[in-house]
């Protein structure tokens, strides 16, 4: 199994109305990979954004080459992180897959280094350990985050300190196996992947990340989000 130094990395980037962020994310990724020397491709899976995200993606494709930037459209009522990843993976040619949201893209190189270190099956970002952290969060948001994570740790004992992170690196065959087994939607899906990975005996490495809030756009954390988080958590508790 090739270690990260020699492997090709496919980045899956599901987007919806990310016209502003997308060029920045792509630029950061390109720069990171050029520095690390990895062969890479960025697969943008757009959910029929009405704000011109696809036009921007096509421009980026011209700038960086269509072997490096791949545009896939997925207009489907069932668009969710899950279906976007399945769709994206079909065309991925790397042996490592990075899954991330289009609003945070700091530390890809850290992930690659960590993977090489321990030949981990999965490398996950954590805001809660080491010098990981957040920026621009008020006390209430931090409290909710820590509280929710505590409950998650008690109930699921997942073996990873941060489950809802949307920034991970997987070995390709590991991700494929997990996608078959996981059934949740949205970010609960991310949580389920880690829990199942643990059960299947995959190794998980953690990298402290700085979660800088959305560059553009609103981050929402209202009562609805909390309720749906708890529902998702209890579902995982009962089904994994």
């Amino acid at each position, binding site marked *: 199994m090739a270690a990260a130094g020699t492997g090709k990395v496919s980045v899956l980037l599901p987007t919806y109305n990310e016209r502003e962020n997308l060029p920045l994310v792509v630029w950061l990724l390109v720069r990171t990979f050029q520095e690390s020397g990895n062969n890479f491709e960025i697969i943008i899976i757009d959910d029929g954004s009405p704000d011109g995200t696809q036009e921007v993606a096509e421009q980026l494709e011209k700038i960086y080459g269509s072997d490096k930037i791949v545009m896939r459209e997925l207009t489907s009522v069932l668009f969710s992180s899950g279906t976007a990843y399945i769709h994206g993976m079909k065309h991925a040619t790397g042996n490592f897959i990075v899954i991330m949201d289009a609003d945070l893209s700091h530390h890809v190189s850290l992930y690659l280094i960590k993977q090489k270190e321990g030949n981990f099956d999965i490398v996950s970002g954590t805001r809660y350990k080491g010098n990981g952290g957040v*920026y621009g969060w008020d006390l209430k948001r931090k409290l909710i985050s*820590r509280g929710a994570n505590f409950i998650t740790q008690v109930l699921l004992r997942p073996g990873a300190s941060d489950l809802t992170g949307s920034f991970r690196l997987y070995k390709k065959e590991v991700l494929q196996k997990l996608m078959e087994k996981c059934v949740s939607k949205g970010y609960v899906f991310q949580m389920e992947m880690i829990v199942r990975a643990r059960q299947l005996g995959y190794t998980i490495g953690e990298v402290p990340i700085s979660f800088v809030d959305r560059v553009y756009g609103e981050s929402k954390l209202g009562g609805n989000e909390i309720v749906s988080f708890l529902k998702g958590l209890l579902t995982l508790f*009962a089904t994994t």
Partner: protein
Amino acid sequence: VTMRKLSQWLCGLALLGSAWAALALAPPGFQLPTPYRQALLPLPVYLLVAFGCYSLATVGYRLATFNDCEEAAAELQEHIRTARQELRRRGLSC
């Protein structure tokens, strides 16, 4: 197939629960000496309260030590500036 978390909890609680019930609520004739029974009876509540305190302390500690990444934010702003310049140069209308 591994046992589900919920099942693990239910089994664990059932085990501890029945052990406690057997010892604390035993009918006369099978009872432990009084001091033991008196300690055992409120044990579940004590444990619950202890767990509650532990939870509050842990979450409080983690909240207090939650890092703020000033540098990372500043660095990101830097990168964004550079990115926009370069992308504009390369023909992106942004």
